[in-house]
């Protein structure tokens, strides 16, 4: 059974009178441990698709199944539980909690899921080069450092699926490469599947698969 199955997925945004279809008929399958890059023009609906997969938003038609569980059948609490246990999220904005330290941010999801493994957390910190900053607050870190914390937080609970939306969009090229490298390494080690939205074709090429989104469909 594939980890993620998307069938005939459709989603439109409604603002006021206006209805703007974004995803029209998306089909996609992702196996456990597989890495997938999604590219597409700005505004093509990449982030939207990622949000739907992450059970952060509802869709109009079709179905998303995560490890066989159809998302359409879940209520808000069920979706929250699913995210907590099975999905790691890395966004363009780092989305760290400003009043928690680096170490606390790193462990946040794992702790909430009741899966905090101190050894793994320590290793994550070490490999992401965050050990020195453990007691600092996010504002006291650089952008790359902050994004590394976000990646660590997403992987701390060892989720089977990591969703990343242009994680290095805010970073310079060198930093970006280093952060991505680290992320791929960790994904590899944990055996998580990766669904990465990116603009970089070069990066996309390094993943198992590369798909392109345009006009609401996977090309």
């Amino acid at each position, binding site marked *: 059974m594939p980890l993620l199955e998307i069938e005939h997925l459709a989603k439109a945004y409604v*603002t006021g009178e206006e209805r703007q279809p974004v995803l029209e008929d998306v089909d996609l399958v992702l196996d456990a441990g597989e890495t997938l890059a999604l590219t597409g023009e700005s505004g093509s609906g990449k982030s939207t698709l990622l949000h739907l997969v992450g059970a952060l938003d509802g869709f109009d038609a079709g179905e998303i199944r995560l490890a066989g569980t159809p998302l359409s059948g879940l209520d808000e609490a069920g979706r*929250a539980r699913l995210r907590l246990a099975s999905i790691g999220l890395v966004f363009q904005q780092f*989305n760290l909690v400003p*009043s928690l330290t680096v170490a606390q941010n790193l462990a946040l999801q794992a702790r*909430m899921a009741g899966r905090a493994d101190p050894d793994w957390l320590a290793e994550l910190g070490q490999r992401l080069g965050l050990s020195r900053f453990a007691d600092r607050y996010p504002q006291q870190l650089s952008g790359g450092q902050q994004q590394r914390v976000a990646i660590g937080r997403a992987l701390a609970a060892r989720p089977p699926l990591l969703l990343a939306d242009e994680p290095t969009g805010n970073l310079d090229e060198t930093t970006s490469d280093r952060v991505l490298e680290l992320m791929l390494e960790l994904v590899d080690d944990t055996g998580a599947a990766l669904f990465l939205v990116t603009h970089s074709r070069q990066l996309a090429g390094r993943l198992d698969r590369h798909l392109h989104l345009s006009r609401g469909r996977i090309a």
Partner: protein
Amino acid sequence: MNGVALATLLSHWRRHPLQLFTLITGLALATGLWTAVQAINAEARASYAEAEAQLAAGRQALLVARDGTIPVDQYVTLRRAGWRVSPVLEGEVEYNGAAVTLLGIDPLTSPLARHLAPTDGEAGLDPLAARRTLFAGPATAERIRSAGTGLQVVVRDAVAPGTAIADIGLAETLLDRPGTLSHLVVLSAQPRGRPPLDAVAPGLTRIEASGAHDARRLTRSFHLNLTALGLLSFAVGLFIVQGTVGLAFEQRRGMFRTLRAIGLPARRLLAIALAELLALALLGGALGIALGYAIAAALVPDVAATLRGLYGAAVDIGLALRPGWIAAGLGMALLGTLLAAAQGLWRLRRLPVLATARAEAATRSNATTLRFQALAGLASLGLAGSVIAGLDGLVAGFVFVAGLLLGAALLLPPALAGMLALGARLARGPVAQWAWADTREQLPGLSLALMALLLALAANIGVGTMVSSFKQTFTGWLDQRLVSELYVTAETDAQGQAIHDWLEPRVDAVLPIRHADTRIDGRPAAIYGIVDHETYRRHWPLLASAPRVWDRVATAEGALINEQFARRAGLAPGDALPLAPGWRLPVVGVYSDYGNPDRQVIVALDALLERFPGVANRQFGVRVAPDRVETLAAGLRDRFGLPARSVIDQAAVKAHSLAIFDKTFLVTGALNVLTLGVAGFAILTSLLTLWTMRLPRLAPLWALGLTRPRLAAMELLRSVALAGLTFLLALPLGLSLAWALLAIINVEAFGWRLPMFLFPGDWLTLGALALLAAALAAALPAWRLYRTPPAELLEVFADER
């Protein structure tokens, strides 16, 4: 999951200790002031209840003699005729310079005796001293003991303050009035076939039990007043809480979203946020209760003084931690917090996980809020107006005041926005324009604090105007009414007569001050008898009168009544007034009589003596040339061995009256100042919390070339300007409040209406104070801005997204 989430929420406060401090302080202040008022009220009420249980005055019918005293034989005659009555001998004894009311009772028949029953472990009192025992409340007992009388004093909490109870045999000795009684208490359960009173004791009059408990009734309005002030303080405190809670929710939006995205269900988040709030409310509430206890403890003596001075309610208010007001205080804290956080919680419930700038912008529309506030404010004012037009009474008065204050508070932000818009239009130069516009933009964040300031200022102006008007009236009235140059009090009637005779040839006039305490319509009232003298004709402050008023009083064809009597009984000149069984007189005039809780009547002395032959003849006003006052007073003291306090000149009486007056409004004043302090604090905290949000706005200006000192100065100026505008709006509000207090609430509460005087000097002081408070509040943020390292301002740009 809950623990981690709660810890995450709480981590915010660790990073923003000032905010936490503000929140807790706001809660503590709100709860504290409220609790203090509740505690004072609860204690005062408890003490009335005790007093009622103690002396049961007014609850039983009494038999009194028309000539003042009842011989013991008459008591025995009544008893042997089947009348079940119990004797009381009442008088004053002086211990350590303070008068104690001594109540001599027969423990065998008195209903009071059960309050004196022994407690465990008291069986071993010294038998020799046993019949020389006084029973008194703790404070009075202490005073008697310290006077070293050799009498045994037993403490009974049930005995009213300032009173001592003794066996009638001891009392007649101490008072030196053997064989006489003051009155008889008619006991319940009278036997059958008892002869009528007239047949047994023709000289006695029966006074029926009064229905209402006078102290409770009289002081009800006072407590209502306090409660209203307490509520006002609470409301002002809540503004602080609202501001900080709102800010804390605002600042944590990102955190909430992150938690949701990670997998915290929305309901769970809401529950945890609620739990956090309640915990904070409990903490703040507990601190508030401690604070309230302290405030109450500080105010209680003044409250007791007020009650005594204004209402004659003798109370010994101790302060005990009562579960009642502790629970009420915590309840108010919780309720208040929830109220203040309602908006934040509502928004949190509807918080979308995915934030887009568009969605955020849609939730807030400054203009809509202002329009809503303006409408609600007008509606509130309309309600207040219609209530006062349609209803009267104390409650209507308070509804009016509440509506007025609420409406004005709601109208403040739109009004200020209007003023600022006008300012922006008139402004010259880009910086000034920016300053006006920016101030206007800042308004939503500051408006709660400014509302608090408005309320506090208005209350201050209103209450201040009321008190000052009262004082001005009172002083004028005293000048008018206290005409006699000297006031003399004799120790006995015989001495009184001797003094009278001695004075007669030496002075212009001796005016006896004699009165009978009685009940009219079941309410306590005093009937004074006066001689016809130009002193009264010229000076007595009449509010309303019939033609030939003084002639008619002099010839016993009419009676004067005081204003409170006239208002409470709805009497006016021309109405008939039943003074005693078979004695009616038309009302011919109404006089103002401030500071007196009771009904008072003035009739011709001869007429009074005819009905009440025994009224004491011990007090005199003496008209004499001012330069002879001192010699005369000295002569009186020498000749009759009178203590200093028995011969008082006019100035001393005035000073004493004014002292009582000042005491009366001390509590009001103290609460007023506290409320103003809270409002000042509200501004300070608002400005401090806004500070973090201000930086991004100031940074571009700094980048454009405005120096930090200049920016700081502008910040300061802005705060002062807002406070100034608020003060301008508070002025009419405060005066309306003063009018309501003087014309509606005081009339209900005290029974007299006072003219309103304006005191612009006080306003100036208050205005200066408000500006100073605003300047001080802005000083810290301004100083921080002044000291902000450029790096921090730069960071603003780095963070800007």
